[in-house]
């Protein structure tokens, strides 16, 4: 290693105090019916209760979400109030990188003594996208309605291109092979279902029961609804939407939330059911790829991170990424010279969907759980975000009980 770096030295993530909802595909569950912010806050309260962390311990709340929700103006203070706590906090977003940025912001908050126990709450609802109406003097209508989810997917104002076009462009640039892409997709599904059947997902996702306005059951969120077993043959038969991009080789929009805590070493030991496990933040990096090459941006971010820290893939125990396109994984494998089978071993957003705000938070939780199962080690988390951005971070998991 070039540098023995520690990012935010005061901050720790207490093991086992986290959780996520399952991520049902958009329009398939009761989550399409609710105020997602309120749902996320009440779910965070529920998850912390199940983890035996009293919300009284919270001193600050960092929200991460990308799609406007009702009463978003009141952001973190409102959501804290829904579970009875009057604590300060704020909201941030960076498209698909939100889930990681929220964790980093919380760590900065702890490091800067802005609160010893900071909650990270990330969420989004892609179902029934809100529509914003904006004044636009350059249009003859003078006002433009924007469907927040789909119209943003379909149009990057900086390049004039759609998200999916970046995957095709990147595939062409890196001369990817459709056959390999299908194999990656198939492998990712196999990994997901293996993790699910092993009970691994039970450590991460919490079944949640929703209520309607009358207080009667509205539905149970206990599956990544919409995710089905898939065959290699069926993938091969799929129509190509752009170079190496098929319906199977890209993620789908979904709804959900994920939460974790960032705190000090002392408080982490108090709050965690396994105080012998220490989780620290090591380093972070962000890059911006050339226009319309978003899928290569995560790899570039990891390379920048490795270059700065001296870490290499052989130092990494667990690699998890947000891969909206299988193309991302193929490029990573090429640029980092790393077998894509060894990434996302317990599932990934390509399979379980992409509610945006909480996606990388769930990936992180899965990565940390996997590292704990392995007895500790470094967790590499990376992903892309709108604007051809790539983010990456390294976390260090030490199981002092297993020394």
């Amino acid at each position, binding site marked *: 290693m070039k540098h023995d770096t520690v990012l935010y030295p005061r901050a720790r993530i207490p093991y086992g105090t986290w959780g996520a909802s399952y991520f049902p595909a958009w329009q398939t569950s009761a989550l399409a019916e*609710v*105020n997602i912010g*309120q*749902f996320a806050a*009440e*779910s965070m*309260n*529920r998850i*912390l*209760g199940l983890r035996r*962390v*009293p*919300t*009284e311990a919270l001193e600050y709340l960092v929200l991460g979400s990308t799609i406007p929700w009702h009463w978003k103006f009141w952001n973190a203070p409102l959501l804290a109030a*829904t*579970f*009875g706590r*009057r604590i300060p906090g704020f909201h941030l977003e960076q498209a698909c990188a939100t889930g990681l940025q929220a964790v980093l912001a919380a760590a900065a908050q702890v490091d800067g003594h802005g609160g010893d126990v900071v909650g990270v709450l990330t969420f989004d609802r892609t179902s029934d996208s809100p529509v914003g109406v904006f004044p636009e003097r350059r249009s003859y209508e003078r006002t433009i309605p924007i469907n927040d989810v789909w119209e943003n997917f379909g149009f990057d104002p900086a390049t004039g291109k759609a998200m999916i076009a970046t995957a095709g462009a990147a595939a062409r640039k890196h001369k990817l092979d459709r056959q390999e892409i299908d194999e990656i997709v198939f492998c990712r599904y196999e990994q997901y279902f293996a993790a699910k059947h092993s009970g691994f997902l039970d450590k991460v996702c919490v079944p*949640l*029961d*929703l*209520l309607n*306005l009358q*207080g009667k*059951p509205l539905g149970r969120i206990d599956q990544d609804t919409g995710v089905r077993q898939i065959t290699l043959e069926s993938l091969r038969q799929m129509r190509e939407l752009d170079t190496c991009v098929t319906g199977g080789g890209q993620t789908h929009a979904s709804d959900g939330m994920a939460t974790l805590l960032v705190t000090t070493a002392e408080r982490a030991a108090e709050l965690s059911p396994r105080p012998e496990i220490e989780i620290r933040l090591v380093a972070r990096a962000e890059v911006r790829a050339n226009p319309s090459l978003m899928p290569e941006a995560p790899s570039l971010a990891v390379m920048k991170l490795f270059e700065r820290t001296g870490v290499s893939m052989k130092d990494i125990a667990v690699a998890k990424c947000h891969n909206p396109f299988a193309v991302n994984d193929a490029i990573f494998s090429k640029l980092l010279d790393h077998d894509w089978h060894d990434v996302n071993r317990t599932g990934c957003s390509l399979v379980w969907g992409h509610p945006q705000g909480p996606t990388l938070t769930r990936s992180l939780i899965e990565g940390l759980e996997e590292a704990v199962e392995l007895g500790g080690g470094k967790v590499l988390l990376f992903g892309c975000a709108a604007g051809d951005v790539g983010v990456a971070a390294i976390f260090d998991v030490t199981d002092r009980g297993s020394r």
Partner: protein
Amino acid sequence: MVNKGTQTTSMRAHTLDTLGLGTPLAAFRAGRLPADAASLVDTIFGPANDRGSLVISGANGIVGAGKTMQFASRLQPFGVTVVGLDMANAPDGIGRKYPGLVASFGVEQAAKIMGSVVQMKYDGRTLPSALAGFKPRFLLEAIPEILALKRAHYALFRAAFPGIPIRSVTSGFPARELGVGVAHPAFPHEINKIFEIVEETPSASTQLLWALGLIPMEVSDDWSFILDVIFCGVTLAALRYHASSNMPYWKIDKFVRKYFGPNPLRAHDAIGAKGADFLTWSCLHHLAKEYGAVFEPTADLTERKDTGQNWYPPNHLRPLVDWALTPEADDELRTAIAGPVIQMTSLMLHERRSHLAQMNAIGELCAQFRRGVVAMIRSMGADRAIATVEAWHARHPEAATSAWYPDALDAVNEPEGQQLYVNAEHDGTVGVITLSRESYTSDVDEELNRAIGWLKAAGIDRVILSGDFHLSTQMVGADTTEFFPALDDASAGQALAERWSATARRLHTEFATSVGVITGKRCLGGMLELMAHCHVVVCTEGTQLGFPEVTLPVVPGMEACHWPFRKATKEGWTRLLGLLLSGHAVRADQAVGWLVDASGSIDEVLSTAWALAAGTSNIKRRSFEEGALKGLPGTAPDLPAVEGPALDAARKAIVDSVHASCGAPLAEAIHVQARHSGAFMTSSACRKGRVGSEFAKTMVV
């Protein structure tokens, strides 16, 4: 125990006697009630030609306004003016009560009552000069719960009106701290009749409360008395559980209601969170200082005493995420609520804060416990109760260090603890069984059986059955929560009906003479069925009698479908059927001869009942047919139109039950009618009706 004043023996002390009003048997023997309102009004407010006034200070507050209405409506007929005194800037709390007054009394009487209320404003330091003109003779203080403020207020009044009797409505401060007696009322203040009274000996003012139809209960001079230890205690338990589990307040409230009865946090919001949170915090804060950590207010309560935030979310933030509990978590929750409540009760038992029947009744009538705290501990048994507290202490060791008196729980095994709802008294010849609960439960049933057994063991075969003239002021029927297990199990409903009916039959079969005495506003349903089993029934003339089961709907299970028919003529059968099928009530004086045997004024009822029991009355018993009855009508005339299929189904089921049970000989009829009753409770009509809805609302959490 031997009652010295009346030379009688009773299972346990009568609560009436704690007011200095003797025992029910003495009232029956004397042929009159032990006190009357008119003479007590004279005693306290002066004679009619020099009548003084009742002053209520803080009269526009929640308590003050409610009590102003309650007392004005009761004292107006005696010409007593109620002076409502409050700060100059106080909002008009009294005026807001007027619509409720109209609803209860009608426009004309409401105007008269309001006409007896005089509102005065002042600055808190100088009494209005015009006040003296109203000749204040009694002060009921209802100002904020700040000790120094209260003391200064008393000094102000004593300086202006030397010797004026004062009672504070404080929910927490002992009389020794205040320097005045306490009359702590229970919410909702305009209708709740209960007052916790702290005074050295029962006073004329306390007896006047009783004579006006209210329910004063003498309690010891200890912090927060009984009601607020229980109510604030269960609130605190709920908040502590929230702090340890994160379960939302609204959800904890539902579980507390399911398992115990009250929903304390909703109650705070309903009363007005700002005031109620402060009162609860104040009580707990002082209790914690006096007794330790078991009463220590939680951080959220301390915060909300200042902010006054509601506990339930606002309408636009109705909860989205439910909280299911595993069996282990469910057990933990029950322990978290029951543990501290039992510990707090142990303290009250240790300090002997009141007659146990009163301690228990306060929990039921004022804190909405389905089973009062003493009865709850009794049903668990002292050992299990202690184990529950110890399990709770494992999570809250700080609470174990003080105010925990496990030995005091043995009080539930004493006669007072065993007979919380039913007492019996005799003079060697005549026995009097009194009911201290307005609705019939399995606990009442068990205690009634013990009371009958106790009298039989003493060789008593003449008995009067009545309310206790104190804790139960009317008889409303069976407690319908007892029916919940029967909603999906017909055999449970049948067993309940058979068990309760068998108890009622003992009044008929095990005594040479049994006299049912019905007083108060109403006697309905199961309680009327119980009374009907007595050989003779006498009622105050205006009392409303009825079988509202059809409106719930359920089929009567304590033999209303055949027992009264066996004592009635054919004309009476039609009326009885009309009563059963309409659910309407009838005045007692219009039911003589076919449902009851005599009616009259309260004094006439008391003396008649005594004469009947003593064998000196010339009222003849109606004959009782033990064989099958024939020629019963198929319906009753002038029934109100059927509204919905549930009522239609209930009427058919009741007619079927009447025909089947009347058509059976007496020995079989108990089972026949119980079978019909049990079967109907599993019907969709019952499940969709009031009992089923109540079950869904409280038990399906």
